[in-house]
């Protein structure tokens, strides 16, 4: 939101005596490819980007400030609105933080429901990414295919918790609603269907020559840079770091299921594309196992004090959201409201590398690179 950046205007004269001028282009806040109200001030020389300055905050709602005056249960709906594409993981990270502080036991069935919800949401989130990413690249069709299949997931969520995007499903100590009768079977059906559909996706897009040419070698960075920029999730794994919090710091009941952590070494947009697709596959694998082992009965809410008062102290937990590492820090003073609540938002952190990646790229690549980072503006601005 800095306005003085707009006034810098640089003239350069080329050697041939032709006077060329760099141009400042405002990409966003209303732009089809910024995935929300994100603004990018790019200084371009022809179509080559000399410098990119991200400007954000248009969607800042002060969640962290609001949370200081809300009880923990009341905060949960606010987390839905951060990463609204994957609200379940946000729900979970908050509940998980509080539960970690209070040392609560979560009933088996609730654990399963949470895991299933999170993984379904991961699939849904990657589908949204897939569709919009291809829309950025210029392909229109895949977007609608992705949304068709995501719709099935949203319907499942609708049945589970009565909402399609802002779920408000998890509670400290468990989940709010048990799965309705037949829900598990529907979910199983979806998993089987999605497995087949994923092949179609690959056939439609993955081998396309134009698509490959647009992504290979674009937005490349190495492991060292990735770590330096605190990247996480697919952004980090695309450089060869085999790191998935579900595997390496298991939470919920992820340690009970078999799945792989796909990695790539190229660190470019193509690698990220492949990883996200592979992650859908792995999520389906987890879902398959979890739905199979789903306990036939049991409580969905653990024993939780009427008023949730985590002990005085602080905690920081992190889990794997579809976009990377989402963390939740709570400083409690033993009250029913947090003293300080802070979310480590993967979109926000991952976005930091954008100016670096954009340097020297052309405008078309800008869209591809931004898309491959996979940001959700609700989360960036929080």
């Amino acid at each position, binding site marked *: 939101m800095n306005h003085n950046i707009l006034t810098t205007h640089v003239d350069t004269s080329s050697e041939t005596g032709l006077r060329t001028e760099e*141009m400042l*282009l405002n990409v966003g806040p209303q*732009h*089809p*490819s910024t995935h929300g109200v994100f603004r990018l001030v790019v200084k371009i020389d022809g*179509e080559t980007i000399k410098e990119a300055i991200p400007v954000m905050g248009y969607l800042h709602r002060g969640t962290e400030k609001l949370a200081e005056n809300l009880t923990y249960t009341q905060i949960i709906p606010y987390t839905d609105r951060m990463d609204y594409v994957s609200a379940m993981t946000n729900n979970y990270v908050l509940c998980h933080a509080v539960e970690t502080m209070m040392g609560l036991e979560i009933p088996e069935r609730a654990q399963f429901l949470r895991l299933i919800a999170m993984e379904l949401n991961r699939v849904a989130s990657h589908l949204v990414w897939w569709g919009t990413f*291809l*829309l*950025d*690249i*210029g*392909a*229109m*069709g895949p*977007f*609608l*295919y992705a949304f*068709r299949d995501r719709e099935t997931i949203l319907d499942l969520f609708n049945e589970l918790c009565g909402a399609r995007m802002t779920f408000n499903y998890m509670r400290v100590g468990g989940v709010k609603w048990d799965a309705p009768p037949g829900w598990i079977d529907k979910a199983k059906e979806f998993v089987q269907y999605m497995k087949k559909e994923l092949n179609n996706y690959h056939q*439609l*897009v993955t081998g*396309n020559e*134009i*698509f490959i*040419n*647009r992504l290979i070698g674009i937005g490349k960075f190495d492991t060292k840079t990735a770590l330096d920029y605190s990247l996480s999730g697919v952004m980090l794994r695309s450089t060869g770091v085999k790191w998935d919090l579900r595997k390496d710091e298991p939470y919920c009941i992820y340690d009970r299921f078999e799945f792989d952590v796909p990695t790539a070494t190229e660190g470019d947009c193509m690698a990220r594309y492949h990883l996200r697709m592979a992650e859908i596959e792995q999520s389906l694998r987890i879902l398959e196992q979890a739905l199979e082992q789903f306990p036939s009965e049991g409580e969905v809410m653990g024993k939780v004090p009427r008023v949730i008062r985590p002990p005085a102290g602080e905690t920081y937990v992190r889990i794997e959201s579809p976009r990377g590492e989402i963390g939740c820090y709570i400083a409690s003073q033993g009250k029913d409201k947090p003293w300080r609540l802070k979310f480590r938002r993967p979109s926000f952190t991952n976005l930091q590398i954008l100016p670096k990646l954009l340097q020297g790229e*052309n*405008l*078309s*690549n*800008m*869209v591809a690179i931004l898309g491959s980072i996979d940001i959700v503006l609700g989360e960036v601005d929080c």
Partner: protein
Amino acid sequence: MNTLLQQAPSWGTTLWFIVAAVLLLAVVLGFVTYAIYFERKVIGWMQLRIGPNRVGPLGLLQTVADVAKLLLKEDIRPQHADKALFTLAPILAYAPAFAVLAVMPFSDSIRFADLGIGLLYYIALSGITVLGVITAGWASNNKYSLIGGLRSAAQMISYEVPLVMSVVGIVLLTGSMNLKDIVEAQRDVWNIVPQFIGFAVFIIAAQAELNRTPFDLPEAESELVGGYHVEYSGFRFAMFMLAEYVYMFGMGALITILFFGGWLPIHPSLDFIPGIVWFILKFSIYVFLQFWIRATMPRLRVDQLMSFAWKVLLPVALFNILLTAVVVSYQNGMF
């Protein structure tokens, strides 16, 4: 029509010209109306949607309603736009697109000017459209439209070269630039067979000429929001839309004439079906192909686009010319 053209100009003949032109315009507008409808329907089906279905039966009047809306819209001109050029640009883009139709033989009898250099005329006129696009991009005083306009200029000029080169083979085979002669020369076998390389180059270059997916960079909405016509609205925008679809009409007609044997039937035994029906059929296949590609393909990147034109298409087109020349020479007994 030809006889009319050769008569001494009089009020009567002028009136006839006007009537004929208006008739063609009506046909073209009808085509555009339903091409848009068809495009939306086809892409809708391909993308699991229904497409327009509200205005009129089966949504048939959707485009009419859209055009009416565009015409009734307030005419907005950006404050610091170059007024004269801003107004001129849509006309500059539209007029040549319509003018090229003058030389198209739609069937044996339905045709207007029978120019000896019909093909050259088409190519020369279609080159003017790019001026309209650049002018629009420049005059809008908008950075996005400027980039879009320049992209478009670069693209259209680059692709015009392989486009022209690819049809040289046909000219060599036929020995004429007259479009009617070219059709007549395909009695035995359509040009798509002996000139397949040329066809491939042509269809790709045509796609780029038309600024359609996967070469729709000038108006890449995910990058440039709308490209050169981002500041246009109302009937000026309608002009650009119209130009685009009329162009598609022209290109469809040209490709039908050059490669698909124009109004000629698939087999002489099917001669009883009027030539115009054949023409429309072949033409529709091409138009459908356009929509199909649009529904599935991603977009090329601007640098790849350029290198593709100069490094791939042009050499292939040149090779095609060489090959054709050799074959024609051989047939003529020069070796």
